[in-house]
């Protein structure tokens, strides 16, 4: 085991996969000489060369489109979209091409490719460096959408994504990149795409979250324990799509109460699907109405520190919601 932050965990995993499989190439804006704006591919250009570490023209649709062609002809491309906020020009390629290739060819062609992109707020990213984009893509069958929140999960799930025969949108929360530190095994390991993970066991309520919000919820759960003597079970979704209903429902049935927390705009966000799943399948196991916390329905968080804070759900808000649920 080595203690790493998420940037290092992703860097090291990518490095290992590239070193062990020549089919793996990375492409995107600034991934070469610059080593990525978040330094994920630092040193790759020197080690693996220009043919495997491709600084692309500045065109996100082209990056994904080129990666599709590569994947159809024997490579395993890892396309980086510099910020999730810039992924929208590639929406057509991802939705119409990437997600549908296997289905539309009746299984004749598969697309083993990974699209990595930093997402989320809390870094003074304002309107166009803070967005949550998972809901757009989680709606699309044929695409796996993951959002690991720890160095261990980021490493294990990235390895799974690279080895997956199907396309994976790999979301890396920017605020967690250097904030979250944890142990990562020194030998290659995988964390499966699909299963959620109970990051904290508890009895009194279930909290479902992912990305930065996982850590906000874990912090709030500690405070709940300390101040109210109540225990929250915190489920880290990890994979947004396909959704691990079993883990969410099992936990909810155990505690009888559910709180869903996400930083995306509340309406039609991924949390809505989680809430609907609980409402449809665990209604009679509930002791309280399901509570949902999301970002407000405004276009984005502001650049000003106080505007950003006003947007993002924080420990206080989550703690208060937990407290109300516990005493319901």
């Amino acid at each position, binding site marked *: 085991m080595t203690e790493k932050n998420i940037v290092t965990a992703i860097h090291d995993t990518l490095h290992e996969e590239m070193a062990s499989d020549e089919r793996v*190439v990375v492409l995107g804006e600034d991934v070469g000489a610059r080593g990525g704006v978040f330094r994920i591919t630092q040193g790759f250009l020197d080690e693996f060369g220009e*043919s495997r570490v491709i600084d*692309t*023209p500045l*065109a996100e*649709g*082209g990056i*994904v*489109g*080129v*990666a*599709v*062609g*590569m*994947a*159809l*002809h*024997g*490579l395993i*491309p890892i396309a980086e979209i510099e910020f999730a906020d810039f992924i929208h*020009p590639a929406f*057509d*390629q991802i939705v*119409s*091409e990437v997600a*549908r*290739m*296997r*289905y*539309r*060819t*009746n*299984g*004749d*062609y*598969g697309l083993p490719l990974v699209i990595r992109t930093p997402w989320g707020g809390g870094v003074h990213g304002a309107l166009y460096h803070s967005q949550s984009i998972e809901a757009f893509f989680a709606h699309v*069958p*044929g695409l*796996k959408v993951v959002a690991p929140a720890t160095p261990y999960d980021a490493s294990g799930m990235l390895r799974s994504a690279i080895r997956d*025969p*199907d396309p994976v949108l790999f979301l890396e929360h920017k605020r967690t990149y250097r904030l979250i530190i944890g142990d990562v095994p020194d030998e290659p390991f995988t964390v499966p795409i699909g299963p959620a993970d109970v990051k904290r066991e508890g009895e009194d309520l279930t909290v479902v979250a992912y990305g930065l919000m996982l850590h906000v919820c874990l912090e709030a759960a500690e405070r709940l324990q300390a101040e109210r003597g109540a225990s929250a079970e915190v489920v880290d979704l990890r994979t947004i799509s396909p959704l691990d209903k079993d883990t969410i429902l099992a936990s909810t049935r155990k505690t009888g109460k559910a709180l869903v927390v996400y930083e995306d705009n509340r309406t039609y966000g991924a949390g809505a699907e989680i809430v609907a799943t609980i409402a449809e399948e665990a209604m009679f196991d509930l002791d309280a109405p399901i509570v949902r916390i999301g970002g407000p329905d405004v276009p984005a968080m502001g650049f000003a520190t106080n505007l950003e804070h006003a947007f993002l759900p924080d420990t206080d808000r989550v703690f208060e919601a937990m407290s109300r649920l516990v005493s319901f």
Partner: protein
Amino acid sequence: MATRVSSTDTSHEALGLSPDDLLAMYRTMVTARILDEAAFRLNRQGKAPFVVPVSGHEGCQVGTAWALERGRDIWLPYYRDVAVVLVAGMTPYEIFLGLFAKADDPCSGGRQMPNHWSSSRLGIISHSSPIGTQIPHAAGAAYAARYRGEDAVAGCWFGEGATSEGAWHEGLNFAGVHRLPVVFVCENNHYAISVSQRKQMASENVTDRAAGYGMPGVVVDGNDVLACYGAMKRAVERARAGEGPTLIEAKTYRFFPHTSDDDDRTYRSREEVEEAKHHDPLVEFERYLVQHGVIDEPLVEALTAEVKADVDHQVDEAWSAADPDPSTLLRHVFAETE
């Protein structure tokens, strides 16, 4: 790198084509034409809900496709490319399986509309309906081929309307930057459904843009199958030699509406269509072949009758093939494990 009008000697001898090659090319063009007739007949009979015609494009399609090699090269056709996929090895039977949306349709098992070509066996890469999306795929596949040490060339076909799409620019730009082994073929029939070229672009030639992508642009008479072959042959040789991509623009005309659901009387005069038919690539090639003693009138009649009978037979076979099982609707969203 300026636009160049293809002007090399396009006699078949100069191009290295034997009389047998010419006959095979001619037969493919005739087959494509007859497939159109059959498809529209089936459409009127209510058996084929949607038809995308090829008539008028047989010359540029057979000519360009003939310069690629089955089992070696990569094919990225678009929906009008009936003759391209015939050259790539798809049979009329397989094309009709797609027209009837049958279970064994090699392109999609009856999932996509007809003419959305795909076959990993033949090296034909699947495409969708949004226009121009396959252009960056061609660049990526060509990149992968070179990376893997293959000498494959990717051929990528599209209409002039596709050249307005961002994906088209992005694909050509990437191919140019990396000098990839890919040939982009624009079948310019001057209409994107109803929108004329005048409203589509400010330039006279699509190839005027080639210089911006660091590749040669070659204009060719799309109704001259041998000229198209010559232009493509040089482009493929160039690509295989590591000299990079080429943009070919074949000026041609579509004789029928965009699809069976279109009415081209709303945007093209009948006089214009009739005038275009005076430059029918099939008739022009026939004339060439007669002049060079490759065919004569009786042979044309016999060959046409034979192809018609063969196509009719394959239509019947395809019509009686099994429909997809509705229980397969949920399959192949992701890879299936044992």
